[in-house]
């Protein structure tokens, strides 16, 4: 298991532990934010850095970015609830080409990472429903209690979750989608033109492409099947790594299967531990 996977599992476990505690004091509210991204090129970016809660992004026409924020707080005591209201905020940052929504609180390190070293006695959850111009790139992140759902986006994407699904549809760009406990489902409206990576630990990976797909795949599942709706050819297995450090020689082949669909093209990597990988054809295209 790679370091980042281990770190994410630790964060998820800590958050789950906090979440599972009895939190009888509650408060919630809903509000809206609005921004404008005036440009029309794919260098515009929407960034969401959430901790608890789901992210639902939908692309459409126009230049407006409209965010519906559903904030719900749970705390162990009335005092903890008051602290939660004071300490945790959804901080929007807006520049000409970038909108960033970041959930900030005492669990953040100065460099913006999440560190759950102590129990705060409360959980603040933000469920975000975001309408964006479809010609944007996305960077979305959440950790707990929420899936990430994206629909109709032309730009590239970097999506990360820990305990939840990732479901992207109507996608015309390329990018990465990573979770730990949850399914990864990507449906491309236009086949990716550059490299993509899709990773989960516990869950299936479902990739749906248009019929003219041309790509090279590196697939890996420990406990599951790999299925393809496209004719494919097996590629030579990537060479194992050889290493000699401190007198120890190690040769390791990491169980990746390489296939080519069509004449080949961008490298698409998909990896899960417990789950199937399915590459299927978009029948509506």
């Amino acid at each position, binding site marked *: 298991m790679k370091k980042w996977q281990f770190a994410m599992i630790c964060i998820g476990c800590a958050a789950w532990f906090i979440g599972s505690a009895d939190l009888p004091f509650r408060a919630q509210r809903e509000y809206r934010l609005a921004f404008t991204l005036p440009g029309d090129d794919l260098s515009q970016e929407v960034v969401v850095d959430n901790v608890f809660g789901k992210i639902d992004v939908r692309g459409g026409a126009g230049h407006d970015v409209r965010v519906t924020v559903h904030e719900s707080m749970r705390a162990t005591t009335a005092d903890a609830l008051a602290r939660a209201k004071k300490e945790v905020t959804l901080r929007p940052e807006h520049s000409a080409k970038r909108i960033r929504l970041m959930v900030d609180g005492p669990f953040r390190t100065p460099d913006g990472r999440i560190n759950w070293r102590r129990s705060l006695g409360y959980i603040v959850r933000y469920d975000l429903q975001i309408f964006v111009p479809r010609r944007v790139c996305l960077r979305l992140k959440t950790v707990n209690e929420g899936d990430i759902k994206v629909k109709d986006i032309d730009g590239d994407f970097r999506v990360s979750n820990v305990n939840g699904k990732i479901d992207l549809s109507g996608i015309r760009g390329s990018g990465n989608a990573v979770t730990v406990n949850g399914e990864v489902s990507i449906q491309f409206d236009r086949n990716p033109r550059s490299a993509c990576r899709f990773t989960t630990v516990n869950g299936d990976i479902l990739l749906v492409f248009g019929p003219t797909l041309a790509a090279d795949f590196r697939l890996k599942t420990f406990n599951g099947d790999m299925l393809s*709706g496209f004719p494919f050819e097996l590629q030579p297995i990537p060479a*194992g790594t050889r290493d000699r450090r401190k007198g120890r020689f190690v040769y390791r082949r990491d169980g990746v299967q390489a296939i080519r669909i069509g004449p080949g093209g961008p490298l698409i990597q998909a990896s899960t531990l417990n789950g199937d990988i399915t590459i299927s054809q978009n029948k509506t295209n």
Partner: protein
Amino acid sequence: MKRMQTKCLAMAVVAAWLLSPVLAAKAPEALETVTVPLSKASQPAWVEAHVMFGSITVEAYAGREVVVETFLRGKSLQSKIEKKIEEAELDELKKEKKPTRDISGLRKIPIANTGLTIEEKDNRVSIRVDSWKQTVDLKIKVPVNTSLDLKCQSNGDIKVTGVTGEMDVNNLNGPIHLTGVTGTVLAHTLNGEIVATLTRVNPDKPMSFSTLNGDIDVTLPSSIRNNVRVESRGDIYSDFDIKLQKEPVKKVDNGRHKGGTFRVHITQGVFGTINGGGPEISFKNFNGDIYIRRK
């Protein structure tokens, strides 16, 4: 006489024709070949290999490196690619895994990967493969002076040829064949025969050959000096001059002084000595015969 010759010739032609596909069949191609350099090439090596589904073949050679080859057993990968998922399998997949997902028309992507991992430190080489989903055969070439620790679970046999060293060989559902080996052998399987030919043995160490269901056929140098212990429900054959012990071996455990019990255990089996005796060689099976041959 001429008629007889014609008959023989005809039989030879038919036999050659029948065997031709076998003889013409190409040896399977290794999926991967890894050469492992030893840290101390002039000293003996120690190789450990574990396979869940598959076989292990170890051969000694004149080189100073360990060469590991892996083979995937079963239908060719190309035939697996060309085959669409059969109806029965599709139904099973739909039922068990994806009741809501349309998987008709999909092909299974075969896993042409053994997940081979090899580690070496101070001449100790450890070899592992992901053989729990598919049958993987391992072929290992080792320097002559190499000790072995080999384990197989199912779907394969263990074969060792020409190695000198200490051998701990365990199979579960398959035979063990050791040919022209030298040193010390501990060989155990559950369902399968053990056939071993030892060129020389280590005079100071005991050895053991045991199986539950299968014959044990061991050929030993005529000059060995060992005690032998043979336990079997089948027949025991030997051309060694084994001096049999007349009294059964009693083992007494007196635990009375600790408030326990006094226990006498009379060991089953045949005990004897070869050439005056020495370290014990144990032969034990349940269903099968035991052959102890002199070379």
